[in-house]
């Protein structure tokens, strides 16, 4: 009998990550799209780092940072009673960092594809930046919002290296589907590994199909990244 808890854990992790990234990504992408600060390029580079770094490198440094033996980890432990290594909150935080570019880049493309005078028209109608963002800009880039949300969700489901480094494989805690597949293969349970793998394959395909269908529907094909 297949144990569904790793898949359930993967979905939960992806949902948390996506929700946090939406809250974080919208203001960040907005700032990046309209700010002219010179050091903006550095921020963009840092955000995109997870796309080029081996996940193990990111996981390794996060492990060092979160470890209670390190100063940051000790601070969290002592002041907030929060342990991020080998825990679910640690996985969420690592996933947020790891999937950030998959939320930011579609949103940035969305903001940049909007005609600049929409923003100006809203200002001349007496509206605040906040009203403009929520009532003018975001409603006109729904495809980008959905693309960013779905891609960061899918990318979190598909992560392995970071999760392995920072979470290990504690059943029900940090043993997500991708890690479970690795474990089952290690113990030569190929049938079980195949079950997990098939579910992930089907899920990933469905999610990507959804993104493309949405983009076609809005008739504004946007690059994925």
């Amino acid at each position, binding site marked *: 009998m297949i144990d569904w808890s790793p898949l359930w854990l993967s979905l939960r992790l992806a949902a948390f990550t996506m929700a946090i990234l939406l809250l974080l990504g919208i203001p960040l992408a907005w700032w990046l799209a309209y700010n002219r600060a010179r050091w903006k390029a550095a921020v963009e580079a840092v955000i995109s780092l997870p796309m080029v770094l081996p996940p193990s490198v990111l996981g390794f440094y996060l492990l060092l940072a979160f470890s209670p033996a390190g100063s940051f980890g000790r601070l969290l432990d002592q002041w907030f009673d929060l342990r991020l290594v080998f825990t679910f909150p640690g996985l969420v935080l690592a996933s947020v960092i790891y999937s950030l570019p998959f939320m930011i880049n579609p949103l940035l493309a969305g903001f940049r594809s909007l*005609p600049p*005078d*929409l923003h*100006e*028209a*809203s*200002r*001349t*109608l*007496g*509206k*605040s930046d906040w009203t403009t963002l929520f*009532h*003018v800009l975001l*409603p*006109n880039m729904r495809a980008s919002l959905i693309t960013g949300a779905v891609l960061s969700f899918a990318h979190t489901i598909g992560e392995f290296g970071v999760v392995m480094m920072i979470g290990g494989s504690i059943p029900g805690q940090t043993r997500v589907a991708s890690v479970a597949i690795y474990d089952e293969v290690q113990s030569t349970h190929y049938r079980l590994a195949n079950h997990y793998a098939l579910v992930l394959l089907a899920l990933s395909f469905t999610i990507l199909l959804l993104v493309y269908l949405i983009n076609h529907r809005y008739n504004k094909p946007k690059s994925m990244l």
Partner: protein
Amino acid sequence: MTENPTTPAPTLIFRTTKMLHTASGHQLLDVGFQLKQGSILALYGPSGAGKTTILRILAGLTDTATGYIRVGEDIWLDTSHHINLPARHRPIGFVFQDFALFPHLTVRGQLEFALPKKTDRLIVDELLSMMELEELQHRKPAILSGGQQQRVALARAIARRPRLLLLDEPLSALDDEMRYRLQDFILKAHRSFQLTTILVSHYLPEIFRLSDEVIVLENGQVRRQDTAANIFLEEKISSKFRVTGEIIDIQPADIVCIVSVLSGNNIVKVVATAAEAAALHIGQKVVVASKAFNPIILPL
């Protein structure tokens, strides 16, 4: 500033200096003018002269090096005292050249969005009816024609009851017949809402029809401020017959050429020698003038 108490204060006082970076290089915009309440001012001049920049500075969308804007008793901009009212706090209506309608809102939605909070929504119905948009009120901008979009943009700009209406070449995307109708809408709105209006235009019939005053901008400076008739119809002084227009056709006929000149909605045909015609080309702006002659007046 000291005011002379015997003359009424003008509604709008505007002064600015700003470096313009245009395709033809850098140029200093150094402009000042005053405008009476309730009048319509046209800004006229070659492209790159700074017409749109002036509108944007008035709206607070573009920053200036130095500047001063007073509307009635309110100071919107005074760089010497570090006053710069943000765009959203200036009571203006701005009609953008390409309308800048919100793609996700219906016609009625655009107007309702423009209303300040807790204001009477009656003005929405009033504007929809005035601009003849009632039947289109539930449509989105993408399926409207250019003329309809223009009316929506105008209605949206007026919905919040601005003191100053700014129009950036509002009719440039429309054909002649549509322009004429929309000029009516602009005049109607200007009068019923007692606006002070500034429009950028390079189209003389429009300027004559709409404006009380014209400012001619050249090289970033005000060259003249006067009525359209005084600026463009010099024959008033020299009592010549004179029409300005654009050449739309040059046809050879025997040894001469017939040059057709479009002026407003009228076509004037003029005979020119082959040598004269050689110096002309279609699309050229010309003056057709005649000195000593007896004009014939016929009732229409």
